[in-house]
């Protein structure tokens, strides 16, 4: 590769108060190259991408495009220089349609006025590129996280950018959509675009990346070219050791705990779902983006008002639409959207961790700060959250670490039924292994776990049983013995019914 690189970073650094998120770093991305960034949660990956995309300003260092030094005043300036960003946290203004969202900030104009038709046509084109299952005029409000991720990806594509900056673009996508995304990235690379890419899914990295930079604590600890890259090597560089082999375990043999009968959700009112769960059983909900996994989890927990059907635990019916009642009955729920439904911005990590258990941690009325601190420290250790960061505001944690907080907050209570929606979304490989081990321990201790996951490996590794959904219908149930990737995909895509 000759000539100045498409993107060139020299000594770029950034800190937040006392935390040095990114130490001075050099990095290049060439046209027609996929450069992957991997590292543990909080390693500084997102910070790096935000600096490149003009969302944050560097404390030091120079960013240049095609050899020309850039000083971005904001995301808009970066976009003008040909950089498109898909951020890690999929936040969109919800008061518009998908087409509006794709056009936002870069509207087709005739003078001051918008040109709606042109915008819609463009939206349809790019939504087709990402194989989105929703129409251009769908209100964004109605889109699931996965669909929003596709939407923002389509937005990034619409820019026709020289450099695409993708922060965990597949974290909320299931296998099929992720595959489609990878094909798309490959075709963009073939057309000469440069791509900067973060993922915690190592197979994706291995398949796509021409070069991989490994960050740890804001520093580059290794760089691999495509030829020299291996999963084991990446993991070793990321976490500084080899991961233990995943455990296996015996199937649970217990009495029935949960009964779900005739469950009907608002988004898929045509189909009803029935299933049972045993004590200590781990059941996965699998399906494509928009297949209704989230809806079922929320309905079982009672997060949404509207539901038809009956959910009973130990034969006692759970009041619909009342998380209060569900939590009292021993339910715990980790929602999919950590920004909107999980994290209390401005509260400390410690307070966030204590939120689901302020009451049980001290008598009925008064809190006990000492007990709360102890509990927080314990569960933080269990979930791999650095004890030094318990006092910082929760929203300043990296995405993966916020995810850990959401999970960890339930560990003080040892729930009867743990409901998890994409539990390891954005969590690094090492921490994921720890969380998996944690879930298995909980199950062994009698907690039942119902989780939805887009990650095939996670489903295959954890589940005793998998409920496969297709467009809101229970397409089939796979016991552990019959479980394999092909069967799962076939059911999820509606290729055949089991």
């Amino acid at each position, binding site marked *: 590769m000759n000539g100045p690189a498409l993107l060139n970073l020299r000594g770029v650094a950034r800190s937040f108060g006392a935390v040095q998120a990114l130490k001075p770093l050099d990095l290049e991305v060439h046209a027609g190259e996929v450069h992957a960034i991997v590292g543990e949660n909080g390693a500084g990956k997102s910070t790096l991408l935000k600096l490149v995309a003009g*969302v944050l300003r560097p404390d030091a260092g120079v960013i240049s495009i095609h050899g020309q030094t850039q000083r971005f005043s*904001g*995301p*808009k300036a970066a*976009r003008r220089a040909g950089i498109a*960003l898909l*951020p890690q946290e999929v*936040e*969109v*203004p*919800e*008061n*518009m349609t998908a087409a*509006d*969202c794709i056009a*936002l*900030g*870069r*509207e087709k*104009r005739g003078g*001051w*006025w*918008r040109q709606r038709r042109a915008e819609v046509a463009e939206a349809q084109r790019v939504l087709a590129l990402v194989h989105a299952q929703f129409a251009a005029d769908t209100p964004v409000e109605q889109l699931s996280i996965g669909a929003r991720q596709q939407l923002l990806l389509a*937005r990034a594509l619409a820019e026709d950018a020289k450099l695409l900056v993708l922060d965990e673009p597949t974290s909320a996508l299931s296998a099929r959509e992720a595959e489609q995304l990878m094909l798309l990235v490959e075709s963009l690379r073939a057309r000469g675009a440069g791509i900067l890419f973060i993922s915690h899914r190592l197979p994706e990295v291995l398949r796509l990346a021409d070069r991989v930079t490994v960050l740890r604590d804001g520093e580059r600890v290794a760089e691999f070219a495509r030829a020299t890259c291996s999963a084991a090597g990446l993991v070793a560089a990321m976490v500084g050791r080899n991961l233990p082999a995943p455990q296996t375990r015996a199937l649970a043999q217990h009495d029935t705990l949960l009964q779900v009968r005739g469950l009907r959700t*608002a988004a898929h*009112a045509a189909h009803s779902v029935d299933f049972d769960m045993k004590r200590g059983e781990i059941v996965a909900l699998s399906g494509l983006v928009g297949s209704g996994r989230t809806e079922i989890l929320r309905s079982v927990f009672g997060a949404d008002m*509207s539901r038809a059907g009956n959910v009973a635990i130990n034969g006692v019916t759970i009041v619909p639409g009342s998380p209060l009642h569900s939590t009292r009955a021993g339910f715990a729920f980790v929602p999919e959207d950590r920004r909107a439904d999980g994290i209390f911005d401005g509260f400390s990590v410690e307070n966030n961790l204590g939120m689901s258990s302020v009451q049980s941690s001290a008598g009925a009325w008064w809190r006990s700060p000492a007990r709360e601190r102890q509990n927080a420290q314990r569960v933080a250790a269990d979930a791999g959250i650095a004890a030094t960061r318990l006092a910082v505001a929760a929203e300043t944690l990296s995405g993966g670490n916020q995810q850990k907080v959401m999970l960890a907050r339930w560990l003080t209570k040892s729930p009867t039924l743990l409901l998890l929606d994409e539990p390891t979304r954005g969590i690094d490989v090492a921490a994921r292994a720890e969380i998996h081990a944690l879930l298995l321990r909980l199950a062994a201790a009698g907690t039942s776990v119902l989780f939805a996951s887009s990650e095939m490996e996670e489903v295959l590794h954890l589940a005793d049983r998998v409920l496969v959904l297709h467009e809101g219908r229970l397409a089939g149930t796979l016991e552990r013995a019959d479980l394999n990737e092909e069967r799962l995909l076939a059911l999820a895509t509606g290729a055949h019914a089991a």
Partner: protein
Amino acid sequence: MNPERQRILGIFGLLVMVVGITAALNPDFLGAYNLGNILRWTALFGVLSLGAALVIMTGGIDLSLGSMAGLAGALLPWLLRVHGWPAWAAMMLLLAGCALLGLLHGVLVTRLRLAPFVVTLCGLLIYRGAARTITSEQVIGYGVEHEQLRLLATGSVFGIPAPLLLLVGVALLTHLFLARSVAGRWLLATGRNPAAARLCGVPTNSMITLAYVLCAMLAGLGGMLFSLDLNSVTPAQFGQSYELYAIAAAVLGGCSLRGGEGTVLGVLIGTAVIRVLYNATNLLGIPTQLEFAIIGGVILLGVTADELLRRLRQSRSAL
């Protein structure tokens, strides 16, 4: 049906109900004279409500609107009669001044990240003091020389009150701005999710500032129209608590104080509801001391009924 339409329909239903009941109880209500009055008042207050709505749509609030209207309304006759300015120059100057003050609000809110409530509350106090000081607390009217100018507020064209025509113009522009212009889309996106909008490359700060500027100008325009209509301005009181009416009309008409929501039509209907209620209590001879209670009660019942009906419909359609 989309929720925006539903909201508009709900508040329109309330309007129809109040109009219907009042007309049934007192036939004078539908007389041309009374309708003309209602339309004129709705038009005057509507200008302010639209301004309030724009700021609310960005997730802010403008409490200074009543004082701003008072300032412009008091300075117009003062410029005309005490300083002999020509009408067009005085109005231009005042509009420009209001725009400047709105700009200041916007800058304080966006650049210094001060709370809109605090900034505009200070505005409320300051502009009131300014109006009183500049005019030395003198009540000023337009005298007889400015009958022509006063037609802007008191005249009518083919029986349509002039301020209504003005309002229709302003409302159409605002509607086009919100529904069709690039900036309008940006403004709504900013109100709903400022962080996301900024990531999308929307100049969120400029949009918020723009809203404050427009609101201040509309407040100024409204204030001048009010003062032309009333022909007598007491600087200490003129426009007092109009911000509450304006914000109430906007919220009643479907703007959420969390930002990112609202329609021009809704806001106009919201304004009309409040005006009609005032008129109705008078026409039905309800004792003044009960008036407030009746107006509050009807609005509360109206929004409650609207909400209950919506739920009923939803639960029907869900089954």
